[in-house]
């Protein structure tokens, strides 16, 4: 198991390096001149050349990429913002917590609402509750967050005045952003869990469990739950990347000082270090989350775990089997 975890973590390295190179290349190739943006109107060629040299923008692509990777890998140095001259890493570390807490809360809310809704819908298939949850899920997955967010803002922030409109100053200000961000996931998990549970409770081993005389609640929790979760976890894994992207958009709508607003500012100002740094950090978070998901996967399903059990253990068990024989 440890080997499996280490393997997964090591795999994240080339992924992140790939992200870094791609993002850097894209910003490099993007039309528009950051030096011009910084200096504004009325600059002399000397001033321009001096600024470009200062930012390292006068060198070739490979040299720029090389020094960027070197700085990131050796010193976690993502450069300084062209606009504010503040090191990107300082901003990233302060803002990361905000984004991460929204993303994390969204995941928790999604799981706490989506999975129980799916289970109830499956157990009480074709009941009013089932139809209610399923249609709610369908509606939620059909409405994008940038539509639902302003609607909720108008209703709860402007009309009812129950919740703050923007910022992240009190616990109440978390409610709307987290809810909006979680909505798509809730819809997805409800539908996935329902389908998966319906599939599971028709399996022969559930009939075996019934034939043992177990109570229905034990059958659902002990026998069906883990098996239901296997495909749900798979879907959750791929949904996490979407969730991070959603978190960035939600931050913009609710003016939350997180990675999203930072990245957005960077994009509008052609502040390349900010763009690169934010994207790489987001990719890092997504990587970490998917590692957690993969580990969870192995915990839930012994068949997956068996694929990654270390060679030593296998040899040992084979030896034990031989000795016994």
């Amino acid at each position: 198991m440890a080997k499996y975890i280490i393997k997964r973590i090591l795999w994240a390295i080339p992924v992140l390096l790939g992200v870094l190179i791609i993002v850097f290349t894209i910003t490099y190739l993007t039309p528009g001149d950051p030096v011009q943006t910084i200096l504004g109107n009325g600059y002399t060629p000397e001033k321009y050349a001096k600024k470009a040299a200062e930012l390292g923008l006068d060198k070739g692509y490979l040299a720029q990429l090389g020094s960027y990777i070197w700085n990131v890998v050796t010193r976690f140095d993502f450069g300084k913002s062209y606009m504010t001259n503040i090191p990107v890493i300082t901003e990233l570390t302060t803002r990361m917590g905000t984004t991460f807490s929204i993303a994390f809360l969204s995941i928790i809310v999604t799981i706490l609402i989506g999975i129980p809704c799916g289970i109830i819908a499956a157990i009480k298939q074709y009941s009013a509750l089932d139809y209610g949850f399923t249609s709610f899920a369908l509606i939620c997955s059909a409405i994008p967050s940038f539509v639902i967010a302003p609607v909720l803002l108008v209703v709860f922030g402007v009309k009812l005045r129950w919740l703050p409109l923007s910022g992240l100053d009190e616990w109440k200000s978390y409610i709307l952003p987290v809810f909006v961000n979680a909505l798509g996931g809730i819809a997805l998990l409800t539908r996935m869990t329902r389908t998966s549970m319906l599939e599971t409770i028709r399996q022969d081993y559930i009939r075996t469990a019934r034939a043992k005389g177990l109570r229905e609640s034990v059958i659902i929790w002990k026998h069906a739950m883990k098996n239901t979760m296997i495909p749900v976890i798979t879907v959750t894994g791929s949904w996490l990347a979407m969730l991070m992207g959603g978190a960035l958009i939600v931050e913009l709508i609710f003016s939350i000082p997180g990675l999203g607003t930072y990245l957005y500012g960077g994009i509008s100002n052609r502040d390349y270090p900010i763009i690169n740094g934010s994207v790489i950090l987001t990719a890092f978070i997504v990587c970490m989350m998917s590692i957690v998901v993969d580990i969870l996967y192995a915990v839930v399903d012994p068949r997956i775990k068996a694929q990654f059990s270390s060679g030593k253990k296998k040899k040992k068990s084979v030896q034990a089997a031989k000795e016994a024989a």
Partner: protein
Amino acid sequence: MSLLEIRDLTIQYKTRKSVVEAVNGINLKIDEGKTLGLVGETGAGKTTTALGILGLVPNPPGVIAGGEIYFEGKDLLKAKDSEIRKIRGNKISMIFQDPMTALNPVIRVGDQIAEVIALHSGCSKSEASAKSIEMLELVGIRAERSTEYPHQFSGGMKQRVVIAMALACQPKLLIADEPTTALDVTIQAQVLEMMNDLKVRLNTSMLLITHDLGIVAETCDDVAIMYAGQIVEYGTLAHIFDNPMHPYTIGLFGSIPSLDKDVDRLTPIPGLMPDPANLPKGCNFCERCTRKCDRCAESEPEYLEVEPGHFVRCSNLNGGAENV
């Protein structure tokens, strides 16, 4: 009264479009320590009958439309859910057809056996797992394998685990639903031998569902031949094997090879079983029967006792083979 007595049991699967008459008024009896073989082709309603006894007919669409199932003098169909749960896995347990899917893939096999022991005997977890290891050893699986998962076992081994699980609480009645169908012949023999052995040791009655007459000959005391949801012939092993009366039973024997007779071709029963959602008016077997007469298509045959304990459902028993 017998240990298990089924009277006029009718089970249907109701869909919006049709009613599938899976089991149509069957009567069965199993005495203590005896084995009844329930024989019939696929779709005859054998498994549905077994599930009916345990109250496990999937609902919807399955409905027990009528009849009585007396177990130890008590009608299971009228019993409360909680009472039935106390009987399931404890006094009546079932070995399912397909060992590949009958075990939960994410729970260790030892725990799956210990679960049923802990549930019904009320003993502690450690006692239950000790007992589960005992059960595994009883069916010939080493103790240290109890912490393994089903995917680490072969098909035959899985079936042993399923059998260990079914026998864990020393049931009065064991329902074995084609326990060997999914296994290859050598493993079949081992499993059957083991089941027979355990049955004698624990004095368990057994309802053995199969379509293999060879297995019936080896293990059963009584035999019921089932066709399209009805028992068409019922009797002791000797009745059925030495003096089969129903054309379907005779047809079944005609379609298995024999060691003592030298024949070039086996004689299969022509045709297919009628659609259980649309059963014929008269005898269900009429279409395929070699000695059908006018009465067969018109009225349902009576269930006659042709000799003590030997019942046959046929209108033209003495008709011979005039129409062949």
